[in-house]
């Protein structure tokens, strides 16, 4: 590597590098402090939560977790419902978006450019513009209070930014691969299944991780479509718990809050690289 290509800063005097690290570390500390404090406070006795700003519990206890779990309705069911919806949403997005993306990126058919432009336009469309007729449609189908309105749209590739992400990825694959497959006698379906789908893996992992996290955290559409507490998901259950507790027991509220973000945190740690790359390619909202 030539001297010219060195990133700026490596030649800076050491006190400047130290100042840079100090600034970044201080900023990072302030950024995660609320999360650390909530986690720490969930392990503190109630009177200690309001007593101090330190995230470290003086007398750690797990009582908020056990009490919150039994007091907060039926968190086991909430987690199961959320998991079901999120996993189905992942399957739907991975299949439907990759199919649409393969068509847009590799197949040659009439009006392809028109459909592609319309698909891109839907990325900017606010959900509310379609909300009420969608609700009416699902109501007429008898799907309100079921998970279908939350899951079926994913099997119809309505999350356009994932289609776009995959189109970008497929376009970066050498077209000679498709041609070779065609010469070997593969029809487009076989090319998709045996060649494109496996090669698309990094984009599929990104899609799966974001779909899971966003579906799991989604509050608005679950609030709209799920009214029966047996259908409640994690966000709805937590909000009902908050309503019933008011500001009276932050220990239990924090404990359940920490539990609900734990799956997202684990996915974040496992798939950090894919999430960052998905955002970096500039096609994923956030």
């Amino acid at each position, binding site marked *: 590597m030539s001297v010219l290509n060195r990133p*700026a800063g*490596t030649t800076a005097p050491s006190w400047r590098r130290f100042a*840079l*690290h100090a600034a*970044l570390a201080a*900023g990072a500390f302030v*950024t995660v402090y*609320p*999360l650390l*404090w909530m986690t720490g406070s969930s392990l503190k006795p109630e009177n200690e939560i*309001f007593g101090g700003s330190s995230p470290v519990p003086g007398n750690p206890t797990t009582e908020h977790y056990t009490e919150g779990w039994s007091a907060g309705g039926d968190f086991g069911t909430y987690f199961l419902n959320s998991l079901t919806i999120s996993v189905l949403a992942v399957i739907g997005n991975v299949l*439907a978006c990759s*199919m*649409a993306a*393969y*068509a847009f990126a590799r197949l*040659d*058919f009439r009006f*392809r450019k028109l459909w592609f432009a*319309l698909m891109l336009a*839907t990325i*900017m*469309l*606010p959900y509310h*513009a*379609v*909300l*009420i*007729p*969608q*609700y009416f*449609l699902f109501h007429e189908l008898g799907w309100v209070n079921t998970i279908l309105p939350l899951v079926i*749209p994913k099997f*119809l590739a*309505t999350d356009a930014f994932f289609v776009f992400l995959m189109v970008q990825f497929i376009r970066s694959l050498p077209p000679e691969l498709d041609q070779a497959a065609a010469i070997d006698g593969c029809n*487009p*379906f076989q090319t998709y299944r045996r060649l494109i789908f496996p090669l698309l893996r990094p984009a599929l992992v990104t899609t799966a991780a974001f779909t899971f996290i966003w579906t799991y*955290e989604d*509050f*608005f559409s679950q609030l*709209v479509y799920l009214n029966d507490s047996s259908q409640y998901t994690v*966000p709805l259950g*937590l*909000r009902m718990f*908050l*309503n019933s507790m008011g*500001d009276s027991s932050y220990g239990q509220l*924090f404990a*359940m*809050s920490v539990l*609900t*973000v734990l799956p*997202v*945190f684990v996915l*974040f740690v496992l798939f*950090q690289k894919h999430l*960052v790359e998905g955002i*970096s390619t*500039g096609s994923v909202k*956030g």
Partner: protein
Amino acid sequence: MSASPRTRVRVRARHRHNGWGYLFLAPWLVGFFLLVLGPMAASLALSFTDFNLFDPPKWIGLDNYRQAFFDDERFWNALRVTFTYVFASVPARLAFALAVAMLLNRGVRGLRVYRAVYYLPSLLGGSVAIAVLWRQLFGSDGLLNHFLSWFGADTGHSWIADPDTSLLTMIVLAAWQFGSPMIIFLAGLRQIPQELYEAAELDGAGPIARFRAVTLPLLSPLIFFNLLLQVIGAFQAFTPAYVVSNGTGGPSDSTLFYTLYLYEEGFTQFHMGYASALAWVLFAVIAVFSAIAFLSSKYWVHYADVRS
């Protein structure tokens, strides 16, 4: 695409995969017509009706829009709250994003750790759990007041319950989630050739001049991209305000985000015709903003292949 007449004729003559193409596109096409285009047209039509989901819609012409614009203070209040939120939180978020990205781009060791830590709030910030946390942080007994008491400040003030500061806590929550535009900026900064900075430095440009002459123009496509997506997203913000205010948009409607008002009209009052009109006003506002962004972009967005 610049195709010669001959190739254009050839392309028009054959679309090799008409059948396969539409087969693969079928799920998307069904979704597009049934869940996007159809509902858009239907919500426009419903916005001219009185509709409560159970009785057939009754045509009332422009009455919903007339009521919203001339007879509905809460509509104007919701617009005011939402505009304040959008035009305070998006610049704050993008400024943090760009500043931290520039620090991270200085060849710092431990980049991945810093990047992960700064990104985390973006992933969690929209959840109900964080809204629960926010209620405590800015409550009268909350963490913020505890810090302020170190400096002898009054400790009993609830930032959530005071209509003058409740919206501010929502803006702070939004600014905290600067991680995802930060990652986009960081990816863009890494594409800027170091030689440009060195050339500018040789010409005697200081840090501020280098930022204005090199960083800003070369990053402008990403600034445009982030600005557009963040504004569209911010107009639709819902969860934090709903959870923190117990679904009311209070105190005194000070956090009555537009989407909260729309939800209340549509799904608790079942004024679905009126809510459809509200949705189309929101759609129009977002479309106008996007149009302004696109039309103005030729004056301030520079693409790499254009000499400047």
